[in-house]
């Protein structure tokens, strides 16, 4: 009995220690908006961020202090600890990072602030913050930083800079739905992910900066817009510094640049690494790129054919900017929109909305910044179905091993197909729950489907439902759906199981 209690205490201590470290890491990042506020002489936001930073630092230090024994005794980190740390730190960070939002006065309630933070972390991009056009530079910097960090993974960030040893590090990393090993050392993998992102950050910001100046923005403003729009595109986030989103720039070149970055951002980090290492054939052999190419091509063809009938957009360039941009933005789960939200409901028709719902649910690649089922799971499940049909119609003596290419040739085993199908089913249940809640709140079926797919797939496009006036139950569902969709269910289930297990033990103790 005593051993069991010791185990429980140690488990909690491990979780507290590592969660505290992640919180300290994010508190440290608040230095960037603090510096931004100082540069632009924004004194009120400076105070907001100083207070938020102090609160987060105190919370992080407190947790590290409470869990210090696990560090001293070098306690063994189990899988459950990794999952619980990842899911718990996302929840706590949502609350802590919402403090500067709430203090800025741009949100109606603390729940709205939490909504926007979760939307940023999960790279969704839905916004409840009001009067975006007059947000301080410090808060804008913070919003876009959150989405950039959330895309690469906060745990990945903490691993890179804060965890000294790799004991159990892989378990935190998998807990955040990034289960690829680019190099045998997990810290090395985290560093590669950051290296790729930082190279693109430098090149992408420079390209958008130059383009911004060409289209008429002042150099300083063009730089900030470039930085924000790159962070938003690369992390497939969907935030923008202005209310009009990408439409604010009225520029084809700006749209094309952001499209390049969000398509690249939706690729698996393993794919980037393989190509950068010299294995360029991976780009055309990988099951995810094949799946993404095929589904995006079919979706664009069908939507273009639909709009050819409608005669809505006057020329091919307009079609490219309004249809292809939005389809790819939805498919890569970015959420930058080149038309107003209500135009989807009023102009796209049920067919257009249905295509958008499907591509939003499919999403980008596994181990990327994108959300949705992921191309890998769609590819594996579809291939699994084809192989099953082939097996049924071929001779019983014919025993063929089916394979798929994902970084290397892999055997398409029943367990891989089953786990992919299970995650897809979980997404569909979450999506259905969203549609039910939406229709219950009085919204139409197409509108509810669009919005539910957008939050489940971490997309961020809206059909006009998501405003500060939506019912609280819908806000809560959205937060949960964004969180579950981003962490791909398992970590959150582990957190619930862990908390439930602890609660049961306490009840048993009390009962005698």
């Amino acid at each position: 009995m005593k051993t069991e209690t010791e185990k429980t205490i140690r488990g909690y201590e491990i979780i507290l220690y590592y969660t505290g470290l992640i919180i300290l890491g994010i508190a440290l990042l608040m230095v960037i908006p603090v510096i931004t506020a100082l540069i632009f002489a924004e004194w009120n936001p400076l105070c907001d961020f100083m207070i938020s930073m102090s609160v987060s630092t105190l919370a992080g230090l407190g947790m590290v202090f409470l869990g210090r024994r696990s560090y001293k005794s070098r306690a063994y980190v189990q899988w459950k600890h990794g999952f619980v740390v990842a899911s718990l730190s996302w929840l706590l960070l949502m609350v802590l990072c919402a403090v500067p939002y709430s203090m800025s006065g741009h949100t109606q309630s603390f729940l709205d602030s939490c909504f926007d933070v979760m939307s940023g972390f999960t790279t969704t991009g839905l916004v409840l913050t009001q009067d975006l056009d007059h947000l301080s530079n410090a808060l804008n910097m913070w919003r876009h930083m959150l989405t950039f960090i959330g895309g690469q993974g906060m745990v990945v960030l903490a691993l890179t800079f804060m965890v000294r040893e790799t004991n159990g590090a892989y378990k935190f990393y998998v807990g955040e739905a990034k289960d690829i090993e680019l190099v045998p050392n997990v810290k090395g993998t985290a560093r590669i992910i950051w290296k790729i992102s930082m190279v693109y950050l430098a090149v992408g910001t420079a390209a958008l900066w130059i383009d911004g100046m060409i289209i008429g923005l002042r150099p300083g403003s063009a730089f900030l817009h470039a930085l924000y729009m790159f962070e938003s595109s690369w992390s497939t986030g969907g935030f923008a510094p202005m209310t009009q989103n990408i439409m604010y720039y009225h520029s084809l070149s700006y749209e094309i640049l952001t499209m390049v970055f969000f398509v690249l951002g939706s690729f698996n980090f393993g794919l980037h690494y393989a190509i950068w290492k010299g294995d360029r054939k991976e780009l055309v052999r990988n099951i995810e790129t094949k799946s993404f190419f095929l589904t995006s091509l079919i979706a664009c063809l069908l939507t273009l054919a639909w709009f050819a009938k409608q005669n809505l957009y006057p020329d091919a360039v307009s079609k490219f900017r309004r249809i292809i941009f939005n389809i790819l933005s939805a498919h890569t789960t970015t959420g930058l929109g080149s038309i107003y939200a209500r135009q989807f409901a009023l102009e796209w028709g049920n067919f257009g909305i249905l295509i958008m719902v499907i591509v939003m649910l499919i999403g980008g690649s596994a181990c990327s910044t994108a959300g949705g089922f992921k191309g890998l799971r769609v590819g594996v499940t579809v291939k699994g179905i084809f192989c099953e049909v082939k097996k049924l119609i071929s001779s019983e003596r014919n025993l063929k091993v089916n394979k798929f290419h994902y970084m290397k040739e892999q055997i398409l085993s029943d367990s891989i197909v089953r786990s992919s199908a299970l995650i897809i089913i979980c997404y569909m249940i979450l999506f259905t729950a969203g549609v039910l809640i939406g229709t219950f709140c009085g919204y139409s079926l197409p509108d509810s489907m669009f919005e539910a797919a957008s939050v489940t797939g971490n997309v961020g496009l809206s059909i006009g439902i998501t405003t500060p006036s939506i019912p609280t139950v819908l806000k809560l569902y959205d937060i949960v759906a964004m969180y579950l969709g981003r962490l791909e269910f398992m970590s959150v289930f582990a957190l619930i199981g862990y908390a439930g297990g602890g609660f049961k033990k306490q009840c048993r103790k009390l009962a005698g």
Partner: protein
Amino acid sequence: MKNGKNEILGFAVETCGVLAYLVLFLLLAVLLH
């Protein structure tokens, strides 16, 4: 040195690949107009 060259080439291949993919969609928009 070789690593750096490979990385720059990889970066170029990725970016040009995506640009080519977008051009394909632009062509589709022209064809289906």
